[in-house]
């Protein structure tokens, strides 16, 4: 993020020329419409004396200056403005605190005021919208090409058995194909991202797998991990052949974070040793080291073009380095808690950092400046991933998985996780979100509608046990099947008996019907006879008269 040639800057300025003023009567102004709302609803805390959160809303200049965590009004972008997010209760901390939302018409006024360019007073010009665009440049987004990269048929035998799965700190979805990798004890589990079926195991005898990455072209899989407090290593496999290509790194504690450049030449790794090491993927030699971190390295990621490396540590320090020479490119100041994840937007123009302070921050690659921040998961964001269109998904200590619109407004909650959410990943077709948690549970959700799409088996048993289980099941089913067959025979016999009985009954019925017919005819004949003789009797009486 060095200073670019002037021409680029100039272009940016032109691109960001003030938007045309909307129809005057429709746009509320600060002095006339918004200030009264602030005075009534916010003034008791955000006044010049109290200045809660460093924010004073009693004047236009001060309101626009923002609070201690930065600007709160982004002119032209209501939903992306912290102020709007907190008063609309779409983000923490909800304002006013511990009360209901302010009335809808007030909210509408604020929305229109910000959308209209946050005008100070009637006749004033709308404030120019911030330069940085959150639109993704599709041309720059590197997408793997060719057919899906999937592993060959693999052994399903696992490295060991345990009562519970491992907390999911390593989770990666292939950018090309329905392949999902999950870190485990002494192994990487490969799953089919569509069916969540178990595809096989890549052994990692080096220890626990703490971090996983697919290369940008989806052809390689990188795993970092080791034995806590003892040793750390990074291993790279060729996905299509499932063969181990190389092992690099010789750490004295687990590798907690690692990544591979797009050109597949350089590996970055870090962990409790507080040093980020850049290693040659070819021979494992140390290319460069970063010793500026003051705590455990918890996150590293190369930009999609491989030119920059973002790193974060447990004390909340985050940096961007030039991959070549590991020179400092930007210091990302502001997180109040440890960094848990860093992620470059697919086009490489924006970096997202997630922190234990509960916030997600977006940084402009070019300037190194913060573009945006919002409260994503109270008490700590743990995992973060980009959708190619600039939306984000995150998970954290509030046990939720959430998607965010490009400008940072909450889009969708993906249901409650049973434990702290640690990692999220997106399927290559962008249809599914995978969320792994502290209890080792891996849940899939549909991104389109947020509905649950299954839970993966992350603690598969040994094949012997599976066989035992299957045989047991078979025996059970066989027994059940035998019993069912017998029951069927019995039932059939009963049917035959019933049918015979029906025939007999029908025959009897027919006979009785015939008998009945006969008696009816006899009755009719008798009745006619009786009528004739009654008529005869009546006639003879009339004759007598």
């Amino acid at each position, binding site marked *: 993020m060095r200073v670019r040639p002037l021409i680029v800057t100039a272009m940016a300025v032109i691109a960001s020329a003030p938007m045309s003023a909307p129809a005057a009567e429709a746009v509320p102004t600060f002095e006339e419409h918004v200030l009264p709302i602030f005075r009534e609803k916010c003034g008791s805390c955000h006044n010049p004396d109290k200045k809660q959160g460093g924010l004073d809303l009693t004047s236009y200049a001060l309101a626009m200056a923002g609070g201690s965590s930065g600007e709160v009004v982004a002119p032209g972008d209501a939903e992306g403005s912290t102020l709007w997010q907190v008063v609309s209760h779409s983000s923490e901390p909800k304002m006013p605190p511990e009360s209901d939302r302010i009335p809808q018409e007030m909210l509408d006024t604020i929305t229109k005021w910000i959308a209209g360019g946050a005008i100070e007073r009637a006749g004033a010009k709308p404030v120019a919208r911030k330069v940085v665009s959150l639109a993704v440049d599709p041309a720059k987004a590197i997408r793997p090409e060719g057919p899906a990269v999937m592993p060959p048929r693999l052994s399903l035998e696992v490295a060991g058995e345990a*009562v519970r799965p491992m907390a*999911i700190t390593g989770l990666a979805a292939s950018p090309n194909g329905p392949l999902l990798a999950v870190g485990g004890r002494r192994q990487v589990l490969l799953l089919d991202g569509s069916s969540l079926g178990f595809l096989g195991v890549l052994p990692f005898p080096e220890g626990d797998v703490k971090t996983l990455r697919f290369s940008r072209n989806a052809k390689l899989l990188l795993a970092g991990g080791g034995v806590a407090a003892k040793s750390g290593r990074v291993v790279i496999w060729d996905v299509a052949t499932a063969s181990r290509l190389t092992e690099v790194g010789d750490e004295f504690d687990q590798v907690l974070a690692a990544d591979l450049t797009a050109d597949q030449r350089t590996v970055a790794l870090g962990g*409790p040793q507080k040093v980020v090491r850049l290693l040659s993927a070819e021979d494992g030699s140390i290319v460069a080291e970063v010793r500026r971190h003051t705590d455990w390295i918890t996150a590293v990621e190369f930009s999609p073009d491989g030119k920059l490396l973002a790193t974060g540590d447990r004390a909340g320090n985050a940096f961007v380095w030039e991959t070549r020479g590991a020179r400092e490119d930007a210091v990302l100041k502001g997180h109040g808690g440890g960094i848990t994840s860093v992620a470059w937007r697919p086009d490489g123009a924006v970096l997202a950092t997630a922190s234990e302070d509960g916030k997600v921050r977006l940084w402009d690659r070019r300037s190194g400046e913060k573009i945006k921040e919002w409260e994503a998961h109270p008490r700590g964001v743990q995992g973060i991933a980009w959708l190619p269109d600039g939306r984000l998904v995150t998970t954290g200590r509030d046990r939720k998985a959430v998607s965010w619109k490009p400008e940072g407004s909450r889009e969708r909650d993906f249901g409650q996780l049973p434990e702290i959410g640690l990692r999220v990943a997106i399927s290559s077709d962008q249809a599914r979100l995978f969320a792994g948690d502290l209890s*080792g549970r891996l849940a899939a959700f549909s991104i389109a509608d947020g509905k649950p799409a299954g839970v993966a088996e992350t603690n598969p048993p040994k094949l012997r046990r599976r066989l035992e289980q299957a045989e047991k099941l078979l025996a059970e089913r066989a027994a059940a099947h035998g019993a069912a067959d017998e029951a069927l025979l019995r039932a059939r016999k009963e049917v035959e008996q019933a049918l015979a009985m029906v025939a007999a009954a029908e025959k009897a019925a027919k006979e009785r019907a015939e008998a009945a017919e006969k008696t009816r005819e006899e009755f009719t004949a008798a009745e006619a006879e009786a009528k004739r003789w009654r008529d005869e009797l009546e006639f003879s009486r009339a004759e007598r008269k």
Partner: protein
Amino acid sequence: MNRPFAAVAILLFAMAPGLAAAPVSIEVFPPRVRLDSARDRQRIVVQAVHADGRTEDVTAAAAIEMGGTKLAAVERIGEAHVVRPVADGEGRIVVRHGPHAKEIPLVVVSASSDPPLSFRLDVMPVFARGGCNMGSCHGAARGKDGFRLSLFGFDPAGDYERIVREFPGRRIDLGDPSGSLLVQKAIGGVPHTGGRRFEATSDLADRLVRWIAAGGPDDPSGIPAVIGLDLYPPTALLEGDGRRQQLVAVARFSDGTDRDVTDLCWYGSNNDPTVKVSPEGVVTSGNRGEGFIMARYDAITVGSPIVVIPKNLAFTYPQSPGGNWIDELVDRKLAALRIAPSGLCDDETFLRRATLDLIGMLPTPAEREAFLADGSADKRERLVERLLARKEFVDIWVMKWSEMLQIRTIGGQVPPKAATLFHQWLDRRIAANEPVDVMVRELISASGGTFVNPPANYYQLERDTLKLSENVAQAFLGMRLQCAQCHNHPFDRWTMDDYYGFAAFFRRIGRKQGADPREFIIHDTGSGEMNHPLTTAPVAPKFPGGERPKVDDRDRREALAHWMTSPDNPWFARHVANVAWTHFLGRGVVHEPDDVRVSNPPSNGPLLDELGKRFASSGWDFRRIVRDIVASNTYQRSCEVNETNKLDDVNFSHAAVRRIRAEVLLDVLSQVTNTKNKFPGLPLGARAVQVADGRTTNYFLTTFGRATREDVCSCAVRMDPNLSQALHMLNGDAANQRIREGGLVAALMKEGRPDTEIVDELFVRCYCRRPTERERIETIVTVQAAPNRTAALEDVFWALLNSPEFLFNH
């Protein structure tokens, strides 16, 4: 814990070796056994007591039976007897050793249930026992190597969070319990800065593994809390070195259950050369003396005093004639320690010592003549009466209280007028010998204008609520609560709850400016709560280690003042009595007197208890407790030591040689040289002890350690001799200039008195004695050989003033 020397006190006064080969009784610990789960175990210890008070651990040799029932079984594990449950019921355990038998009650409930492990009750003790949460390890404020535990476990909820969730997936692995980092670090399975804390096969490791295997659950609410810890035996008297005594520690819980925590406590000794204690709770004797063994479990520390006497010591306690109740208690302890006290000091020594201690002056030659000439048996008592009646006695104690109350001027808070009024208020009360409880109640609950009601200035001297409550606890109760501000006190009973509960008494003090801008009005604001920093919930006012009083709408300080001075509260009476004791004996029964804590036990518990009790029951008559102290043989002992007491400096077996404190030294220096001092606001010739303002000082006073009164600590008065003091006396104006200025030598010469008389006069003035024959001859020879007689005699005076015999009280 003031454990009475019950066992030791038996048959103190005729102890000869070999007389009591067989024990006279046995004690069984713990005194009752309760087992309440299939996992529960209780270790039994048997202590034999001999006729001369010696004790012996006879556990290994004792026989333990179940008194005819099958409720429990006894297993021998090494030398230990461990009782485990078999069936529910009530019965007894019978212990036999030689001809002696003793029964203890046994209760077994839920013998077959194996309840799940609790994080607080079963796992937290592992971190304490393993040393994981020590201040130098993960208990440090910032943790160690990226992992923090609360210091000695004061914050179990936070520790749970840090272990299970802080760094997800790192510290425990629910699917691989024994492979979890928490376990692997502790057992040395992976590199660990703290090394291996316990074995993989130990009960401690097993607890961690089982808890993780169970899913690492947090405790449901309402888990029982530890409310007490009993350490057995309460005392022991071991003969010779290398003798062992196994301890038993039993923790009591709020639900009425108890647990054998012998293997979970942290143990320490305050005197390793005399008694050592192993992590397993085995005490081993060393050199003669007394050691205090401490055991800590959860937030509670308790201790047992252990006495070690030499093997086969022939010892008869020398009885001194006279004496009072103090001597009984001191003698009892000395006899148990086989220490013979020094004899009583001579009249001249007593006169000088008592005069310096009681009124801060030296006896004049005339007073000395009169005292020596008095042939009556009770002349020492009468001297004490005379001195107690002197105004200078009041001055000394006004000064002492002014130090405790930190009276000093503070710009914008305590103007000179307020400080002076406060000082005068104190002076009037002490002069009238007002009961101390009345005086302190008036002070603690003081409200109103600082000019109208001077004790209200106490709340102007420290305005920070937390600091103020710390000061009150230290000045009036001798407790240092400071540590408990941030974590439970590691070596005392105080918890954060105690700390903030105590501070809550002072939370509602309001201060506003009076009509006179220099005056402040202290008032009760009637609102405001003290919040606990961990839970952020308000903490109701609570007496340290005691109950939560009903405070209603009253000024909370009134409730506190009443509790502090109530007869049910032993702390205050003991503390004030111990302050007096420390002044006269040069060392507190608890030392320092304002450092009362479990791990700093009194050197003589019964003495401290009795001092407090007598002081309170006398109607808080301060002069009476002083009279009793000064009248005791203990106070009147010589500072010459004998073979048995030369190493003792805590049991009052001989007088302590004490440097005279700054103010008194300046006053007696002025007294013997006939010079005067001038202090701001006081007339020429006023004494240094009368200075009201802690800020007033001069080079001499500062050098000799006058307290600035900015710190409540009694240690602010520095009594240690140092080089700058010696240099100031030798070369500074303290001696030289005063000798010339006072003109004493010149005056005596002018009277035409011979050298011998002048030298005698100087010795009497400075030392309250005539020179020995040798001192006299050598001095006279030197003086007469000198070219200038005046200068020579002044040099003699200078030499006397620079001698330890002058600078020290002895």
